[in-house]
Structures are given as structure tokens and as C-alpha cells.
């Protein structure tokens, strides 16, 4: 089922066109990465989908509801974490979430239970009764995710959820987002200007620049389409031996290996994860982590950013 659909969606501020004839389709259950440099129109698109900004022309729908006219119904099924998300700093974390629960028509014991579960899910259970004023940026962002969990929407919009957070915190938040999407069968739209973050959790990606959607599709299809299938596989090993390196190099299709301590970046013609992991296990090597990165996507994105 289509969760999000926009048709010729346009927003102009004076003579500046911020979003230009955008046609976007996002399926239910996807984690969709909205990629683009600053000022590409990502936030404006999200705001129009949520019914918080009126489009100049065109339509936006969420779950079949018109965002501009059925605003209240849309806001019932859509959660939103703004880029500059904030909480009432003089109130406790739990109270902030309770307020959201009440605003969504959840009260009393049911609200308490839902808030407790949400705080537990994001690992802030011990901080429930602490004032938000004492929270770090990363903790606030996790609280924002708990805020979404309290609301239990069908779809959640996360506007640059990782801005200003340290690398460990970024990983934590991205994994958390992927986890809640899976657990709650939630569609997630996450905007970011960093490809690596989008690649980590998103199944689909839309690249936006100057108000236009440049490219859209699943990450694999996009890299195949534009990069001739050239991919990079990142492998983390428990111990890297010369024997292992040679074995990987000998796999048919491997073009290049870059080594950084126990992390290898293997450039290949196609997705060779199966073959490479087999070779490693044959040589009694242990893999900590293995993931697919696409070179091609990075290339397109960099071209766009430089051109902007």
C-alpha cells in the first residue's frame, strides 16, 4: 500500500521555488532516506506532508488522507521529530511524554504504561523523573524517539535526527530508529545530508536537490543503475592475516582491497558477500561485521552536492 504520495507538489516563497513539482511515492513499511544538501527542500516537503505548511500547488497525501485538508487526521497517524526538537526543560522526561500521550487522547494508567515502555525502549528508564534540562543532545534525541513511540503513528518523519550528535550517539540513534520501525511496523522517512547514515538503515532513498527529486529507488537498484554494479564491501575481522587477504584478493570479481587495521574495504564488480564470507570461513577467519556500501551512490550524491 502507498503510504505517502505527492503529485506535482510545489512550494514557492515569493519568486523562490523551494519544492518544484515533486512526485514522490513511498510504500508502507519502508525506511525511506531523504537525501540532499542543505536547502534542497527536504524540510519543506516534510512540513507540507504533515499539513503544517500549505503547498502553493499540487497535492500531498499520507495513508490516503489529504495533508492540506484532513490535517487533524493526518497528524493522528503521523509523528514528527523536527530538526531543532525541544522539550519543556523544567519538566521531567516522563511528564513531557505524558503530555504527548494526553494530546493524543491517551490518559491515566494507559498513558503511564505507554510512557514507561517508550522510555525503556530508548534506554532512558532511569532518567524518567529527571528534568530534561540536564539531558545531553543525544539523550534529547532519544527522548524524541520515545515521543514518537508514545504516539504510535503509522508513519514517522525524522528531520535530520543526527545533527550535532557524536559518532557513537549517531550509531545508537540510527539503530534505534531501525529497531522501532521493525518492531512497530512503522514507515519512516528520515532526512539527512549524510549518505553514510542513510545507507546504514534505509531500504529506499530519494535524492533531492533544488526542490527536485533527482533520483529515487531502493539503494541496490540505484547503485546498479548508475554505477555499473561497482560496489564496496566493508568487512570487519577479528584478526587480519596475510593469508586471509590473499584469499579474498583471489575471489573472482574483486578489484581492490584497502586495509585499515582490521577493517577492509573491498571493491568488487558485484555483490560478492557470499563468496567472500565463504573464503574467510574456509581460512578459519572470524567476521565481526560485513556490510555493503555502494560507491556509485556516493558518486551521484557528491556530484549533486558539488553542483549545488
Amino acid at each position, binding site marked *: 500500500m502507498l503510504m505517502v504520495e505527492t503529485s506535482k507538489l510545489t512550494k514557492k516563497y515569493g519568486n523562490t521555488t523551494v519544492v518544484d513539482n515533486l512526485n514522490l511515492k513511498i510504500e508502507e513499511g519502508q525506511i525511506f532516506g531523504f537525501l540532499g544538501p542543505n536547502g534542497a527542500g527536504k*524540510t*519543506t516537503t516534510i*512540513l507540507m506532508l*504533515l499539513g*503544517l*505548511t500549505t503547498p502553493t500547488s499540487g497535492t500531498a497525501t499520507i495513508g490516503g488522507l489529504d495533508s492540506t485538508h484532513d490535517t*487533524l*487526521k493526518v*497528524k*493522528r497517524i*503521523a*509523528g*514528527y*521529530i*523536527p530538526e*531543532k*526538537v*525541544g*522539550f*519543556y*526543560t*523544567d519538566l521531567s522526561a516522563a511528564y513531557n511524554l505524558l*503530555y*504527548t500521550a*494526553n*494530546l*493524543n*487522547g491517551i*490518559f491515566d494508567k494507559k498513558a503511564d504504561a505507554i510512557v514507561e515502555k517508550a522510555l525503556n525502549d530508548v534506554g532512558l528508564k532511569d532518567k524518567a523523573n529527571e528534568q530534561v534540562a540536564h539531558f545531553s543532545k543525544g539523550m534529547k534525541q532519544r527522548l*524524541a524517539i520515545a*515521543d514518537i513511540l508514545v*504516539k504510535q503513528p503509522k508513519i514517522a518523519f525524522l528531520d535530520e535526527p543526527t545533527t550535532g550528535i557524536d559518532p557513537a550517539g549517531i550509531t545508537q540513534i540510527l539503530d534505534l530508529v531501525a529497531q522501532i520501525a521493525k518492531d512497530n511496523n512503522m514507515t519512516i522517512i528520515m532526512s539527512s545530508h549524510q549518505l553514510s547514515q542513510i545507507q546504514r538503515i534505509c531500504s529506499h532513498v530519494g535524492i533531492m536537490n533544488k526542490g527536485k527529486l533527482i533520483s529515487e529507488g531502493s539503494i541496490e537498484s540505484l547503485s546498479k543503475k548508475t554505477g555499473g554494479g561497482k560496489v564496496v564491501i566493508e568487512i570487519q575481522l577479528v584478526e587480519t592475516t596475510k593469508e586471509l587477504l590473499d584469499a579474498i584478493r583471489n575471489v573472482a570479481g574483486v578489484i581492490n582491497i584497502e586495509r585499515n587495521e582490521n577493517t577492509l574495504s573491498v571493491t568488487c564488480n558485484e555483490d560478492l558477500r557470499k563468496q567472500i564470507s565463504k573464503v574467510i570461513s574456509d581460512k578459519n577467519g572470524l567476521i565481526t561485521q560485513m556490510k555493503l556500501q555502494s560507491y556509485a551512490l556516493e558518486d551521484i550524491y557528491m556530484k549533486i552536492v558539488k553542483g549545488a
Partner: protein
Amino acid sequence: MSAFFTVTKKELQDHFNSWRFLVLLFVMIAAIVYVFLAVGVIRSNSSSGTQFIFLSLFTTQAISTTSSLIPSSFMSLMATLLPIAAIILGLDAINSERNGGTLGRLVSQPIYRDNIINAKFLAGIITLAVVILTTVLLSAGLGLKMLGVAPGAEEILRLIVFVMVAIVYSAFWLGLAILFSTLFKQVAVSSIISIAVWLFFVFFYPIIFQMIANGMTAATQADAIHNANSLILLSRLSPIQLFNENMAVILVPVTRSSSQLLQLITTDAGNYFVANPLSLGQSIISIWPQLIITILLTTVCFAISYVKFMFEEIRAI
């Protein structure tokens, strides 16, 4: 419970739990001290048998001062301090949410946008109503105990009218503060402007008014009446003056009219009028225009904030 009441409830909790409430508490205590002092003054003047002795608790000069800038009675203290109480509650209503990043989260909840600003206004008015009512009740209780005189039915009615007029008056200042908090992005700017408006009307407006009055000359009687009329109009541009006039009529039943010109005639030009108290209905009729103007000013302030908030690009939030 709808989202509107959820927001109102939260705002009320904020008002009663924050440092702002200390300011409101200060207003209450100051008012009670004034009544306490007034009891002393009334006792020493016991010879002048007034009909409405209980009401005089609120109007008697409790502090003898020559400066018109220092409130001398409970009534003028309320006129000076209620605006501050109201401003304190509204000065960062909208822009603190915007700066704190909570407005973006709030407007994305299933709630109509006007519910937010309406709830904030309502919560402010409820808080002020509680403060005014408590102050009057505590003062009345203290007066009752110390004077040993029970209020008559008419006096009670007049006090109820006083409470209602005071709520309308403070609602105007609340509306003004909320207006500035929607117009200006920075809390510091909106606070300073709200306080500046209050300072202007409390301290500078009377001075300017006095200067203009002193500069007026009249050759004929017609001129004098014309001048007096212009001065009345000028003085009524100040909401504080409007409130003072209302209070004088409500709490001092012998006041014939809030018009100073008429007061001038009644006192100066001999006893055309017998100093008989007016009925409550007549008193209300004579302050009706002032009351309507105060309500109108409140509505205008609120309407501008409402429109600004409703049609503002959420992007700015």
C-alpha cells in the same frame, strides 16, 4: 478530555509551579498589607460614619503619600500591580515554545493550532482570576475580623463586580503580553516591550498628562469646559486610568460619574447633587463604556496574536 483542555491543564500547572507564582504571591501579600493598614486608618476616623464601611477597606488611603506614583490604596495598588501579574504570565507564551523547539512538536500533534493560543490565554485568565479572587477574599476576611463589621448584600455584590472588572482589566494586559510574545522572536525583546508599556502608563503617562494639563489656558468658561473634556479623553487613553475610574464608581457608591468634569461640578459648584449612593445598576451603567473599551482592547490584542499565530509559516517555528 479534549486536546484543548490538556493544553490548558498543562499551562495552569506551569503557572502555579513556576517562579512566576512568587510574583503573583507578592501582589497578594502587598494587597493584604494595604487592607491591614486601611483598617487602622478607618478605625481612627470612626467618627465619619460611612454607609459602606466595608467597601472603604479597599478604597481608603492606606498609605499617606504625596506622590501620585505610589499607590495609596488597595484599589490603586491593584491598578498598578495587576498588569505586572498578567504580563508575567504571558510574556513568553509563544516565543519560548518556539525557541525551545517545543512548538514544532506541539503543532504536529492532533490538535488545532488555535487550541494552543486559546488554551494559553484561558490558562492565564484562570490563574489571574484565582489570584484576584483569593486576594479579595483574604482581604475581606481580614477586614471582617479586624473591623467587626459584616458586609451588606450590596457591598458583596459590588465586590463581585470589582473582581469581574479586575479580571477583564488583567486579561487586557495578558492579551498584550501574549501579543508581543507572538510578534517578537526573542523572549528578552517581548518581555522588555511588555514591561515598557506598563512603565509608560504607570510613570510617564501621568507626567505627560500633567504637563499638557498645565499648559492649557482658558479665557472663557466654554474654553475651560472644552479643555476639561479633552483632558478626560486624554486620560482615558491609559488603560490604568480606565480601571481607576471603574473602580472608583464600583467601590465608592456615592460616585455619581466617572467623568472628572462632573465630579468637578459636584464638588466645586455647590451641592447640586445630594451625596446619596447610587444603586449598583446605576454604577454599572456609568462605567459601562469604560468596561466595553477594556474588553475591546483585550479582544484586539488577542485577535492580532491569534491571526499572527494561525497564519505564520510553521517553517519559522
